[in-house]
């Protein structure tokens, strides 16, 4: 984070706006909002330096509920607006809130370019695999064959995986979490905030009205340990109750294998160590087929590279140093001129 200004101690309450929250009762968005509001005071950024920018959709209502600056823009375009804000004032801490439709369908282009440029933004993509605000059509992350109002015989689209997409766009930070796992989600929000550059956090979020239970197979507490893997940098890729299962690489086919420690002589030595800076591993982890493999959660990928807004500022400073403050009179008189008396 760029703003390490000693701020008065704020609490979660200080980040709640005076607006009534209008998501459907039971929506996963409530949990995400509560966790964001919980994490905010820890970050030490004064409220006036925080801007929440969103596009259109259920998730994009988010800025109205944060007592910070907020801009609810148009469908899909929030990354571009956020980029303009950062270009104008890199001192601001900008959070972008988007969804699977907003960020990957109508706004896929902007999200791609914002990620590859490494604009210093914290991007939260709420993935509920459905269009909620327009009342239940399939989204670009809905599974093939999804039956919805607009696909009564099943959708004929293959889905895109948001984290895989982000890695493909050369994002410098890609993480994944779940709406209901407060401990993990707050940890991921902290990491997202701490990363300088375009930080992309995909959050599996349940839409209890139009796509209820989409993630139950691994989101439910009883399944979580066996069906998800919490990746941690430098730690072995172990999962399951008592960490008895793990991921190893088949070096002949360069593919992952889910194995059980002790079975067929498998030892912990063979288990892969997670390396956040390895884009190939990040890609493999992001798109492990469920349920043969667990769903990877955590920071899949994180590297440092120059930020877009930082480079803009550096170029401006270099130009000022080289040319001095722009002189309009000299500009207008540059090149061939002549006098008429």
């Amino acid at each position: 984070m760029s703003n390490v200004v000693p701020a008065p101690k704020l609490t979660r309450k200080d980040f709640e706006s005076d607006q009534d929250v209008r998501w459907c009762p039971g929506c996963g968005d409530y949990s995400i909002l509560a966790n964001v509001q919980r994490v905010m005071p820890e970050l030490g950024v004064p409220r006036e330096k925080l801007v929440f920018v969103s596009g259109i959709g259920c998730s994009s209502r988010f800025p109205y509920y944060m007592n910070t600056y907020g801009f609810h823009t148009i469908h899909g375009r929030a990354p571009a607006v956020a980029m303009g804000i950062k270009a104008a004032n890199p001192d601001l801490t900008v959070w972008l809130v988007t969804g699977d439709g907003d960020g990957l369908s109508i706004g896929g282009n902007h999200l791609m370019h914002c990620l590859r440029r490494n604009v210093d933004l914290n991007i939260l993509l709420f993935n509920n695999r459905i269009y909620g605000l327009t009342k239940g059509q399939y989204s670009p992350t809905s599974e093939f064959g999804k039956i919805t109002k607009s696909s009564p015989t099943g959708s004929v689209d293959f889905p895109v995986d948001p984290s895989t997409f982000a890695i493909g766009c050369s994002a410098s930070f890609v993480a994944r979490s779940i709406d209901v796992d407060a401990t993990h989600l707050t940890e991921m929000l902290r990491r997202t905030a701490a990363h300088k550059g375009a930080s992309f956090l995909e959050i599996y979020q349940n839409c209890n009205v139009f796509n209820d239970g989409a993630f139950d197979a691994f989101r439910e507490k009883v399944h979580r340990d066996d069906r998800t893997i919490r990746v941690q940098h430098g730690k072995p890729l172990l999962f399951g109750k008592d960490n008895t299962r793990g991921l190893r690489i088949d070096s002949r086919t360069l593919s992952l294998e889910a194995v059980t420690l002790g079975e067929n002589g498998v030892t912990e030595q063979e288990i892969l160590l997670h390396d956040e800076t390895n884009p190939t591993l990040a890609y493999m982890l992001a798109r492990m087929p469920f349920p043969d493999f667990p769903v990877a959660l955590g920071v899949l990928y994180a590297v440092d590279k120059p930020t877009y807004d930082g480079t803009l500022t550096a170029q401006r400073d270099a130009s000022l140093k080289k040319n001095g403050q722009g002189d309009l009179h000299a500009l207008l008189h540059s090149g061939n001129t002549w006098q008429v008396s």
Partner: protein
Amino acid sequence: MANPEPQSTPLPHAAKEVSGAVVRFVGDSGDGMQVTGSQFTVAAALAGNDLATFPDFPAEIRAPAGTTYGVSGFQINFASRDVFTPGDSPDVLVAMNPAALTTNIRDLKRGGLVIVNSGAFTATNLKKAGYEKNPLEDGSLDGFNVFAIDISKSTLAAVEHTGLSKKDAERCKNFWTLGLMFWIYDRDLASTIKWVEAKFGKRQELVDANVAALKAGHAYGETAEISHFHYKVPPAAVAPGTYRNIGGNTALAWGFVAAAQLAERPLVLGAYPITPASDVLHELSRFKHFGVTTIQAEDEIAAICLALGASYAGSIGLTTSSGPGIALKGEAIGLAVSTELPLVIVNIQRGGPSTGLPTKTEQADLFQAVYGRNGEAPVCVLAASTPGDCFYMAIEAVRLAVKYMTPVMLLTDGYLANGAEPWRIPDIADLPKIDVTFRTDPEGFHPYLRDETTLARNWAIPGTPELMHRIGGIEKSFKSGHISYDPENHELMCQTRAEKVARIADDIPELQIEVGEDSGKLLVLGWGSTYGAIREAVQRARERGLSVSHAHLKYINPFPKNLGEVLARFERVLIPEMNLGQLVKIIRSQYLVPAESYPKIQGQPFKIDEVEERIRLVMES
């Protein structure tokens, strides 16, 4: 070759004084016609002539050599009197190959002078240009004064001593041609020699070769039969001051740099490359030390959205494009209307619809500018009238955008963008300061509090303590700025946004009559780049005794307050436009006057003769 017969026969070498001329240089894309034209322009300007220029590029980047679609042109009108347009028909056509000749000869005045590079009139080139016979030999150019000179050969001979390869040596032929034209119009070679030295300074052999070619072409004039065609155009009487030549896109870019300085705010340009607007992006990207940030966005939508984001954060947000790009920006313009943020959108119009005629000019995006959005989404619409005027209208667009917290659409077009004219450089101290005040007082704040006079909402930028607020594209409550679906409130907000833009009429100059009386039989009303052609046509019609006046609109939404009165003082109103009649429909609907349309939609600007002829027809009918 036709036998050259000058119309009068002064002594050879004695320059005959003429009031002006129109010269067109045409050749292959690779023949350097733009450089030739630019250098000829500088020399005319330094000699004190008034002038206007217009380049005509092919749409192809590198069209195959010798083809008609690879022809590149540059026209200049220079005179000892006021010049308002690049001229209707050339007096002199310089054609470097058959394709250039065939595509341009029909525009030349009867009896005009044609200089052709006969060295390029090979069988292959004649065929590529569609000639079955060599026009230099078949008599088809009778009626013109034709000089067929093997410029290629003469150039090779002139630069032989520099040791350049044949290919490089032949590339100097445009300077040979320029030298000859300098002789014909009695110009000084010094400015071009200086330019060549600066341009090729590191390669002395290129400096030597181009200067040698220039001097050889010049010397040819003295010795050839062409020496009868030797003219002098005295300086024009223009207002005192320091002048420079300026093109519309450069003037526009510099106007925005000036506006940012006058407002003491950084400028953020979001743009996506598009003809003919890209040069504004190129130009502004050089000015980081003026506090200008340029971002080449991933598309037109991102370009405007990031400009709007920058405005929200307190910079001056700007996006520049042309018709197809503006179409994509429509939804974001609506967001700027709804969030009442300042934003400048420039549409450098080109031929449409769709891709249309990218390198040609048109004014057919007026309806798009005034009406082209969903919902009641009024924006302020301005139009620049000359290349130099683009500078002032850029400043005006920024002034109105920040004062009224509104998007402003500034219209120019390909003709203004690429055209150039001498421009009196303003004194910076004379330019109006642009007052920008951000809200900082939390007492009673909400984001949609308005100034009573302008109805502009207060501009509270992120980073300001205690003013945290949320805005967006959903309707806001007039009273609190919070989301509101209340029916009466929506009507009030729509009326308020419309009224705010309407009140700009109190803040802009009244419409002036440019030429002619304040009342009479006919008012010719124009807007945008048609200024020069209309003004000169009206002047000529008046010289023939017709009761006709010219007024020109630079403010289209809102119109100047006195427009209705001005219209009422004339028996008839004629509106020439480069479209099928758009302003005329707006004028008719707002003022209920039977204004008559004179549409032209050929990708080419109006000629003075065309407008003059239409004035005559209208007045006879």
